[in-house]
């Protein structure tokens, strides 16, 4: 049976249809996950199912009625939606936020009932947030914040729960934690759950049923075993994958194959690229890094990894001189990065920040040409050398066909490539990348990291990147620097550093380690989180006194 279904709906924005003729019945009491490449319409479909968007044709039906004819409050009593990256109202506490989930059940001018208080308590218990209930939401870590929002959706006490990318931005332990919470809600309370996920393996681990969407249509619909297979993944993402079986759970795990023969890691240059010496950095008086020392070899790909809020982006930003240290020093090729002009540093060091917003009207070529700014002056605005560097960067990043396109019209992966091309046109010795793969689907992630590695191998540039995906770091980095709580806890080649003990201690996950049969690289298959769980009693019906 299904209480919620879509009857051949087509969904369109101004630019044209995003989802076409999708007929989908959500099975009651199960976990259904929608997957697909960036821009395939998965979030749009979820929004329509939650009545946030009116279909251009077709209808969404909830309990046999057209959802758009039901009153908002009625829908909200039956169906809860957790948005992608919601922003909390300023200053609200966790409890205040969760209590907002009770709005559909309350009436005007009526004080919250005992029933409301119970629902809030229970939602806090289920998500393990009781201890933090008085804490302002803006002070929480990413994982805690996501759990607070989840608690709000739970307090709504709806039979149907819709979650839009609930794990993006979370580190691996928190991702697993959220997925486990979803599974518990389903198993013990029988809630129907519909999720959008962009990580295929997470979808396989979490769901009973997977719906694969491409180009706004359903291309496959079935159990994880039926859906996660190389042929379909190639069709969906355009990437060759191997599907392994996780030895402990028996679930399929997809591992994208590298697209080119990987040249061996170059031996590091004689002098380290970066020397971080007893560095202390913070924001507005709150220290984030205390006394960090690290070496980044030159000519290799180094990844900085660690759980959320461990200070990895802060370290990278200090290396790029975006933050002023309160103590210690960062040396790049022997010189203090704080010395000399910004422009001189920009000629030697290119930085790609996290999620930069392209200005409207900028063409790809304009963006790439901006990479030449540190080399230009009032009289020398456009030398032959500048033009050659831009051409070279466009070619390397395979953007020649897109050079006259507006950056804002590109897909996430293409856009990220354009930014990399800009950094490349800077022709610097080192390239710093802050979470370059966030928001990208698996194919675009592989594409990008392959490109970065190729740039390192062919041109000998030092690459330092912050990654939050451990598995990707293990595959694409020659060196990893592991951080935790503002300190470096380990550094070295991935295979030496990323042991199951370290994963347990630093990332708080239980993982199965193996090797990729094709490349011999380290494979990390996470099993479950080790974070303390909410007490089992919380699953039982709340005691009514």
């Amino acid at each position, binding site marked *: 049976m299904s209480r919620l279904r879509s009857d051949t709906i087509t969904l369109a924005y101004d630019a044209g249809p995003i989802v076409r003729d999708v007929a989908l019945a959500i099975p009651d009491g199960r976990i259904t996950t929608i997957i697909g490449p960036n821009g395939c319409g998965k979030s749009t479909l979820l929004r329509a199912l939650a009545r946030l968007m009116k279909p251009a044709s077709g209808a969404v039906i909830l309990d046999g009625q057209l959802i758009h004819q039901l009153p908002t409050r009625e829908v909200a009593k039956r169906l809860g939606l957790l948005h992608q990256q919601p922003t909390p109202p300023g200053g609200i506490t966790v409890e205040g936020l969760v209590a907002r989930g009770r709005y559909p059940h309350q009436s005007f001018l009526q004080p919250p009932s005992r029933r409301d208080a119970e629902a809030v308590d229970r939602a806090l218990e289920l998500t393990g947030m009781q201890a933090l209930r008085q804490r302002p939401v803006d002070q929480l870590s990413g994982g805690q914040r996501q759990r607070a929002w989840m608690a709000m959706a739970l307090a709504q006490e709806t039979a149907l729960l819709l979650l839009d990318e609930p794990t993006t931005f979370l580190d691996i332990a928190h991702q697993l934690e959220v997925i486990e919470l979803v599974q518990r809600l389903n198993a013990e309370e029988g809630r129907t759950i519909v999720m959008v996920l962009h990580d295929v393996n997470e979808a396989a681990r979490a769901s009973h049923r997977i719906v694969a969407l491409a180009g706004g249509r359903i291309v496959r619909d079935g159990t994880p075993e039926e859906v996660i297979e190389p042929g379909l993944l190639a069709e969906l993402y355009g990437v060759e994958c191997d599907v392994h079986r996780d030895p402990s759970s028996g679930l399929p795990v997809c591992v994208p194959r590298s697209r080119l023969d990987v040249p061996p890691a170059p031996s590091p240059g004689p002098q380290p690229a970066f020397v971080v010496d007893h560095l202390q950095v913070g924001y*507005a008086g709150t220290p984030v890094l205390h006394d960090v020392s690290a070496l980044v070899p030159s000519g290799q790909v180094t990844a900085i990894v660690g759980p959320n809020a461990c200070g990895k982006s802060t370290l990278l930003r200090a290396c*790029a*001189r*975006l933050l002023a240290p309160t103590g210690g020093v960062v040396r790049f090729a022997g010189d203090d990065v704080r010395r000399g*002009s*910004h*422009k*001189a*540093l*920009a*000629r030697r060091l*290119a*930085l*790609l*920040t996290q999620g*930069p*917003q*392209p*200005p*409207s*009207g*900028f063409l790809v*070529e*304009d*963006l790439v040409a*901006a*990479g030449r*700014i*540190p080399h*230009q002056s*009032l*009289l*020398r*605005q*456009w*030398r*032959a050398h*500048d*033009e050659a560097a831009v051409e070279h960067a466009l070619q390397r990043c395979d953007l020649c066909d897109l050079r*006259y396109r507006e950056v804002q019209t590109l897909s996430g992966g293409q856009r990220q490539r354009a930014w990399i091309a800009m*950094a490349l046109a*800077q022709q610097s010795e080192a390239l710093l990348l802050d979470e370059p793969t966030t928001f990208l689907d698996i194919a675009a992630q592989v594409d990008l990291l392959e490109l970065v590695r190729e740039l390192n191998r062919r041109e000998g540039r030092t690459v330092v990147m912050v990654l939050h995906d451990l598995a990707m770091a293990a595959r694409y980095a020659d060196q990893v620097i592991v951080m935790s709580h503002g300190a470096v806890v380990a550094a070295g080649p991935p295979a030496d550093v990323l042991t199951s003990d370290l994963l347990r201690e630093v990332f708080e996950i239980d993982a199965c380690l193996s090797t990729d049969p094709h490349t011999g690289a380290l494979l990390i298959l996470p099993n479950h989180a080790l974070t303390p769980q909410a007490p089992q009693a919380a699953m039982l019906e709340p005691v009514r006194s």
Partner: protein
Amino acid sequence: MALAPARRRGHLTIRTRAFDVRINVRVLLLAAGVTGVLALLATWAMTLGSYPVPYTDVFWSLLGRGNEEHEFIVRTLRVPRVLCAIGIGGMLALSGAIFQGLVRNPLVSPDIIGIESGATLFAVFWLVTGRGWGLLPFAAFGGAFLTAALIYVLSWKGGVSPNRLILVGIGIGSCAAAGTTYLTVRYPVEIVRPAQVWTMGSVYGSDWGDVRVLGVAIAFLLPLAVGLTWSLRTLQLGEDVSRGLGMPLERTRLLLILTGCALSAVTISIAGPIGFVALMTPHLARMLAGPLSGSMMLLTGALGATFLLAADVVAQHALPVALPVGVITSAVGAPYFLLLLYRANIRM
């Protein structure tokens, strides 16, 4: 000198031993076209008035060969007014373009973030306390700079964030407007009256002295504004990216703010606050020419000059009563501002 045709349409690369530049020819041609229209409009404006002067007489009068009466009307009364409208329109437009680029927000201009209000407060204070019109430009100038400095200091928190700058600016602007209102009720009506007329913004009664002040200001500020286009363009990429590209952010911002303030202060000291030119014109330029390019400031300036001159012609001649030009620009600009807000809302 090698003159290589650019592969990209509309661009011309010129490389010499002394300099290498790439020029967006399309934008430059547009700017030239607008300037042409401006010249025609200016000539027409000089023929209009309660005493019409035919085109040929305008021409001869400009060269100093007309009859005495025509020469007086054209050279003493009409030319300064036309030139002031042109200079003020252009400068307002440039200052708008600078502020919009600086905060990456198209809904910003010196009249909206309170700089004009601050200048007005000082100028009105100057007038109602009977200090005379002679040193008024300096009062307005001082007001604009003090206001800008205050906004800058109050929005400083380890660096200036554009959003805080806008909010602080709106707050300061409201305070200054309240101050102006207080002055107008505090002092006797006959003293306040001329000051109130001045606050409506008008180029009525401009003389050659005003033109000279404008000329000097433009000679300094236009090259500065054009030179700063590069920095503005880099800033469009966002703070972190600009820094990554080696831009000293705070220094560039300070320079941009000073230039923008100077541009708007000069116009206020001569014509009083004229609303919406600074807000609207950069939009128009972007609509015509796409994103910021080197010649953009020339186009923006020419468009601003044309807009204000056209508004002045309408204010002076099209209606039964001659109005201050600020009334016309506001009448056109306010609905446009609402339209912008409406569209911005839809996008969100």
